[in-house]
């Protein structure tokens, strides 16, 4: 079975160009690329899962009293991975350069806050309603997106995010609050450690689900329409249906990430739907590797962990005779690291783990220079 799919995925590198693709996404995810060494991947996966589930105990040994605080910060990375996966399914697999996901991120969080805190509905019902609302909104955004393409779609959806952000801000100011506090959380989710395990369980479940979805008819349709819309349509892939499906799935997953994020921070803020948030989502998939499940994880790790680690540096940092004001330089250092990652791993960090070197499939995909 896997061999079969691999062959399908590989066809990309031999086909010269795909004009519609905005992200020269790597064919066949890093998971699939290693079909020849299945057991190594399985071992890696098991090791990763064991580490993640043992992390609270590891942190306790490492940080002592600060363990819960550190765990709290790691939980955020898992939530980010979920958002990265959502963006990746839409952009890396179905090739829709939509920057609108941050809109769903904020809307679901606000819906959750409104339903659970103000209307006193049960938390789980509120989550469900938020996700359904995101699905409908995804359909609503996806419909017009079929006629707008490329850079136009990107900027239009970015406009949608800014629009959502300012609407949420308006809601906040007219209700006279800074941000929307979540007051009625279930007890389980209030504790750092159980929150971590809950988020971990959700993330693992979703990633496994996505792994299988991508190997189903749906995933193959997405990859086919990414590689060539014309060819996909000619082969009988219903473009409209699968593009819409990509928007809906992505919206729901982003909504889920938004709900978890609000729960994590016990507050929903309008900045969840902002250009910065969109940038974070995009950065994750571009750095991690578009069209790769592993890439979503690595991207979230980069975006979540690098600023954390930079924040841990002493300030000012003495480098020989130089006194570096680290606090001021953090953003810049992050920018430099990001640039380096993009320049040296144009196909994403997941290429490190891929068996084959990354092959550019974009139109201008060969060596340049005078």
């Amino acid at each position: 079975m896997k061999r079969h799919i691999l062959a399908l995925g590989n066809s990309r590198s031999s086909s010269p160009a795909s004009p519609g693709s905005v992200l020269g996404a790597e064919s066949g995810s890093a998971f699939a690329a290693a079909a020849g060494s299945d057991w190594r991947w399985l071992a890696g996966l098991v090791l990763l899962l064991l580490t993640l589930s043992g992390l609270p105990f590891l942190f306790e040994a490492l940080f002592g009293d600060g363990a819960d605080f550190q765990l709290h910060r790691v939980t955020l990375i898992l939530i980010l991975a979920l958002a990265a996966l959502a963006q990746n399914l839409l952009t890396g697999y179905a090739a829709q350069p939509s920057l609108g996901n941050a809109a769903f991120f904020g809307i679901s969080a606000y819906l959750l806050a409104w339903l659970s805190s103000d209307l006193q509905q049960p938390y789980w019902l509120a989550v469900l309603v938020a996700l359904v609302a995101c699905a409908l909104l995804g359909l609503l955004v996806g419909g017009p997106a079929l006629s707008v393409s490329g850079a136009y779609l990107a900027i239009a959806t970015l406009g949608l995010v800014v629009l959502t952000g300012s609407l949420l801000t308006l809601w906040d100011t007219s209700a006279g609050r800074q941000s929307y506090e979540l007051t009625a959380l279930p007890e389980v989710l209030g504790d750092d450690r159980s929150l971590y395990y809950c988020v971990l369980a959700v993330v693992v479940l979703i990633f496994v689900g996505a792994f299988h979805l991508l190997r189903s008819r749906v995933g193959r349709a997405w990859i086919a329409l990414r590689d060539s819309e014309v060819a996909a349509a000619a082969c009988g892939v219903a473009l409209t249906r699968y593009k819409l499906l990509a928007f809906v799935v992505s919206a729901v997953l982003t909504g889920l990430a938004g709900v978890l994020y609000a729960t994590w921070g016990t507050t929903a803020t309008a900045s969840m739907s902002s250009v910065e948030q969109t940038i974070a989502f995009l950065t994750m998939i571009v750095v991690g590797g578009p069209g790769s499940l592993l890439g979503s994880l690595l991207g979230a790790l980069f975006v979540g962990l690098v600023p954390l680690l930079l924040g841990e540096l002493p300030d000012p940092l003495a480098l020989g005779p130089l006194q570096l004001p680290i606090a001021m330089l953090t953003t810049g250092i992050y920018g430099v690291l990001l640039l380096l990652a993009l320049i040296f791993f144009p196909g994403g960090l997941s290429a490190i783990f891929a068996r084959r070197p990354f092959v550019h499939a974009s139109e201008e995909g060969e060596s340049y220079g005078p």
Partner: protein
Amino acid sequence: MLALLQILLSGLVTGSLYGLLALGIVLIYRTTGVLNFAYGALAATVTCFLYVLLTGPHLPFWQALLLSLLFALLLGAVVERGFARPLLAAPILTKAIATLALALVLQTVVQALWPQLTSPVHFPTPFEGQALRLGGLYLSLADGLALLTTALLLGLLQLFLQRTRLGIAMRATADSLEAARLMGIPVGLIFLFAWMLASLLAAIAGVLIAARQTVIDVQFMDPVLLLAFIGAVLGGLDRLAGAVVGGLVVGLADNVLALLLAGHSLGTLDLGDPGIRQTLIFAGFVLLLLLRPRGLFGGAALRRV
């Protein structure tokens, strides 16, 4: 009536500044395929450099301006060689994210070099406080210069792209890289030149905006950039005149909305709030793009099968 004309005039000025920025955005997008989100940071960096020249060694304004524009050319060249060239073959979203990273780096460098610019400072220009009176209309000198410069630059750029060998080579490169290279066009130099030119445009726009606002800091271009992008997309992302017209539309909408909404309120909501204005502009933009998916003037998309 006069009030409306005044508003339209000021909208024209705002719009021409957006248009000027959009011009550079379109230039880069067309020639090198980069959605340049670092454009605001480029403009801000050069403007901050000018500010430092003006306040540090107290150079005369025009001399300092000349030096800053030279610096802009240099900056454009450095950015192209150090950053755009290695990423030339990368997919478009990767390049867009890379420009964002570049913007972060530029802002940090400016902050580290000149810490006084982290908070708003007064930007001195010789035109401050001077104004033209046209009939009953009032036009500050900085605004007049902005209008004039945009018109002049658009005209020059059009002439350059239509009539000169270099301009035609640039258009050929934008059209088809392979063909251009086969015709013996040094595409590497063309890319370098496009970035330098765009950086120069950014610098001019930055200085004009700073002269208009009279107050700058490291991030003073950020709120402007997104609106300039909207202008560029409305204009179709592929024609220079379209970019300027798109910018003008955004600027006019901004000012007319300000006039219409001022003093009104909806329940507890003050409609004169700039946030509402921005919301409306974005809503209008999204709607407009739905009706005309390739901008106001964009034709049907041609797709190679």
